[in-house]
C-alpha cells in the first residue's frame, strides 16, 4: 500500500494535468483543447514526482514501504525472472525516451509571440495622433443611436472583416486557414473581453504592421485599416464586435475615473 499510494497520487496528478486542465480550459473556450505544453508538463511532472517521493519517505516506515519492495525485487534470489523483466522494462523505457529526444524533430520552430502586447500610449492614424490611454469611443456616449451605430458597424464588419474573423467572430472566417498566426477570436475571453475599446481601435487602425516587435508584425495579415476605412467606421466596427460577441469592453481605471 505504501508502495502504491505515491504512485497513484502521481498518476492522479498526471491525469489532472493531462486531461483536467484541458477539460476545464475547454469549458471556457469551446472548440479548443488547451493542453499543457510538453515543456511545462515535464517540469510539472518532475516536481510532482519529487514531491510525492519526499512526502512519502520522510519517515522510516514510509521509506521502507516505498523503497523496500524495489530493493527486494532487485535483491531477492527468488524473484530472478521478475527482476529480469523489470531491468529490461526500465532499460527499454530509457532507450525509448532517449530516442524520442535525439531523433530529429522537424516540427516548426516555436515562436514566442505576444498576442496582445501592451498598447502604446499614442498612435498615429487617419493623419492625427490618438492618445490611447485616455481615448474613448465617441459613439458610446450616443445612447440614442446605439442600435443604429452597431448595425452600421456590422455592415463595416461584413464588408471588411468577416472573411478572416468569421461570421461567428471566432477567428475562423472562410480564409482563416491560410494565415499563421490565425485571426483573433473575439468570442474568447482572452481577447477583446480583456481589452479596452481604444486598444481594439488601435489594432484596427494600424493593423499588423503597427504591432510592436513581440507581436510579430511581420507575420500577421491584419491590414492597416486607417488607410481603407474611416475613423467613424472603425469605432462602429468596434462596437459591433463587442455587441455581437457578447463581450463588454474593459474599462481601465483612468477612463473610469473620467466618467
Amino acid at each position, binding site marked *: 500500500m505504501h508502495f502504491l499510494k505515491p504512485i497513484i497520487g502521481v498518476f492522479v496528478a498526471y491525469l489532472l494535468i493531462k486531461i483536467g486542465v484541458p477539460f476545464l480550459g475547454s469549458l471556457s473556450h*469551446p*472548440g479548443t483543447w488547451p493542453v499543457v505544453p510538453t515543456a511545462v508538463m515535464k517540469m510539472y511532472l518532475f516536481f510532482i514526482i519529487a514531491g510525492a517521493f519526499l512526502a512519502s519517505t520522510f519517515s522510516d516506515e514510509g521509506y521502507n514501504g516505498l523503497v523496500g519492495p524495489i530493493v527486494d525485487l*532487485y*535483491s*531477492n*534470489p527468488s524473484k530472478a525472472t521478475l*527482476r529480469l523483466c*523489470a*531491468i*529490461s522494462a*526500465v*532499460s*527499454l523505457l*530509457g*532507450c*525509448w525516451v*532517449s*530516442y524520442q*529526444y*535525439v531523433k*530529429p524533430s*522537424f*516540427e*516548426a*520552430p516555436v*515562436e*514566442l*509571440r505576444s498576442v496582445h502586447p501592451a498598447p502604446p500610449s499614442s498612435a498615429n492614424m487617419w493623419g492625427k495622433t490618438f492618445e490611447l490611454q485616455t481615448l474613448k469611443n465617441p459613439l458610446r456616449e450616443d445612447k440614442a443611436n446605439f442600435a443604429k451605430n452597431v448595425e452600421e458597424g*456590422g*455592415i463595416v*464588419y*461584413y*464588408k471588411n472583416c*468577416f*472573411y*478572416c474573423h*468569421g*461570421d*461567428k467572430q471566432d477567428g*475562423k*472566417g*472562410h*480564409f*482563416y*486557414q*491560410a*494565415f*499563421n498566426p490565425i485571426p483573433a477570436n473575439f468570442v474568447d475571453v482572452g481577447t477583446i473581453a480583456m481589452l479596452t475599446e481604444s486598444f481594439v481601435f488601435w489594432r484596427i487602425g494600424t493593423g499588423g*504592421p503597427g504591432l510592436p*516587435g513581440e507581436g*510579430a*508584425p*511581420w*507575420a*500577421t*495579415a491584419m*491590414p*492597416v485599416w486607417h488607410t*481603407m476605412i474611416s475613423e467613424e467606421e472603425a469605432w462602429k466596427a468596434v462596437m459591433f464586435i463587442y455587441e*455581437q460577441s457578447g463581450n463588454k469592453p474593459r474599462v481601465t481605471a483612468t477612463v473610469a475615473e473620467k466618467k
Partner: protein
Amino acid sequence: MSLFKNVRKTGLAMATLFAVVTIFAAPEAFAAGDAKKGEAIYQKRCWWCHGKKGAADGPATTFLIPPPRDFTLGMYKYKSSDPKVEIPRDEDLFKVITNGMPGTGMPAWNDILTEQDRWDVVAYVKSLTDMFGKTANPPQIDVSKKIKSSAESIELGKKAFQTAKCFECHGQVGKGDLTKKLKEDSGIRVWPRNLTKPWTFRGGYTAEDIFARVSNGIPNTPMPSFAADTTSSGKLSVEDRWHVVNYVMSLAEPTSKTVDGQTVVKGFQRDVMPKDENDAVWNETASTAYFLAPQIIQPERFFTPANDLIKVKALYNDKEIAFLLEWDDRTKSIPGDPTAELIAWDTISPDQVAIQTPVVIPSGSEKPYFGHGDAAHPVAMMAWNSGTTTAPAAGMTMIYSGSGKRTPGDAAAAGFTSSGTYKDGTWKVMMKRKLVTANKDKDTQFEVGRFIPIAFANWDGSNGEKGSKHTMTSWAWLLLQPPTGKEVYLVPLLVLVLLAGGQLAAAAYLKKNRK
C-alpha cells in the same frame, strides 16, 4: 464536525451536478420551429449576407462567390427529397445551418445555436417564400438500394461517369477541369466541384449525400438530375448512380488537405536532382499542403478566388534545390488560346505561381513582412507564369523590399530554371536554383538544417487574377532536412546499455548486502 460538513458539501455539489446533467441531457422536444424566434436569430446572425428580407442583398453579398442563398425564391441547391418533389426537406435546411457549407462563407452554426434555435431559423427561412406553402415535409429520396463500395462497383461507376458525360464539367480525374463555361440560371459564374477534395462538398460527403446530389442535381445550376424517372437528359439507373457515388468517393485525395499546425515544407536530400516536374523522383516524397487565401490586405483587394490549395515538395543536393508546386486549377489560362478564352470569364491572364523567401535568413524571430518584405528585410521571389500563345511559359527571379518596390534578380547567376505542365486539372511547376549563389544581397542562401521562412502566391488567370489580385499564404517554413546522424541510434543504445548495466550492478550490490 468538519467531516460532517464536508460530507454535506460534497453531497450538495453532487446534487447540483446531477441536476445540471439532467437538464442538459433531457431529450429536447423539438416542436416545429418557432418562426418568430427564428426571425430574431436571423436578424442578428444571418441578414448580413442573406439580406433583411432574405433576398440575398446583405452588405457581404457582393464579396462572396458563391453568393448567399436568396430565400425569397425558395430555390435550394442541396436537397435530399425525392427527385419528383421540387422543395427540399426541412432536414436539408437544418443540415446546412448546422454544418455550414465548407468552402463558402456559410459557417456551421451548431456550436453557438442550439438545436431548437436552428429549427426556429428553418421555420423562419421557410416563411420567407411561398414556395413551401402548406405542403408537408416531403419524403426523403429512397436510399434503400445502396450498393457497398467495391473495386467492381467503382469500375462500373467510372464507366457511368463517362457515359453520363460527367467529365465534361468534373474533368477526367474529377478535378473539375471543365471544358465549357458554366453559370447558374441567375447568370452568376459557377465552378464544378473538384471531386478529389471531399472536404469542400457543400452538401456533405456521405454516400447518401452524394447519391441525393446525383439524383436531384443541383437546381438552377448546370448540374442536372440524373434520376431516370425525371425529365433530365442524362439518365442513370439507380444502380448506376450508386456506382457513380462509389467512384466519386474513390477519387478523394487526402494528401491535398491542409493540416492545421503543419507548416513545414520538408526538403529531402537526393544525389540526383529531378530533371523536370514530371520526374519520377518526386513521387518518393510527401508534400505539404497550404490553404490559399485571396489577397484582402491591401488595395486592390480580391475576394473571389478559384484555387484554394497549393502542395509543395522540395529536394536538394549539395549544389541545387528544387521545388515542386502542385495545385488544382480548373482552367489552363493561356491568353490567346481559343479553348482557354472560351472558358475564361474575365479577361484572361496567364496562370502564375511564386515562392517568397527572405533574402537573409533571419537568425532571431524577426522576419520580413510577409507581404513583399520591407526596406530593411527584402525578400527574394521565384516566379513562373504559364505564358501566352505568343510568349512561352517563363520563370523569373526578383527582389522585393516592400510592397511595390521591386527590382529584378539575376536568374542566370542563380542558376534558376523552371518548367510547368498542366494535365487533368492540375498544374505541376518545378523551380530549381543553386543552393548558394554569389549574390548574397539578392538571393536567399539556402542552408541545410535551418528553418527558412517561405510563402507562396498563386494566380488563376482565367479568374481575373493578376497583379495584386491573387491568392497567397503567410509565412510557413522550409527545412532542408540534414541527413540523420549516427547519434540517433547510438545514444539510445548507450542509454540502454548504461541502464541495464547500472541496474545489474545495483542488483548485485543489493544482493550482496541483503540481510
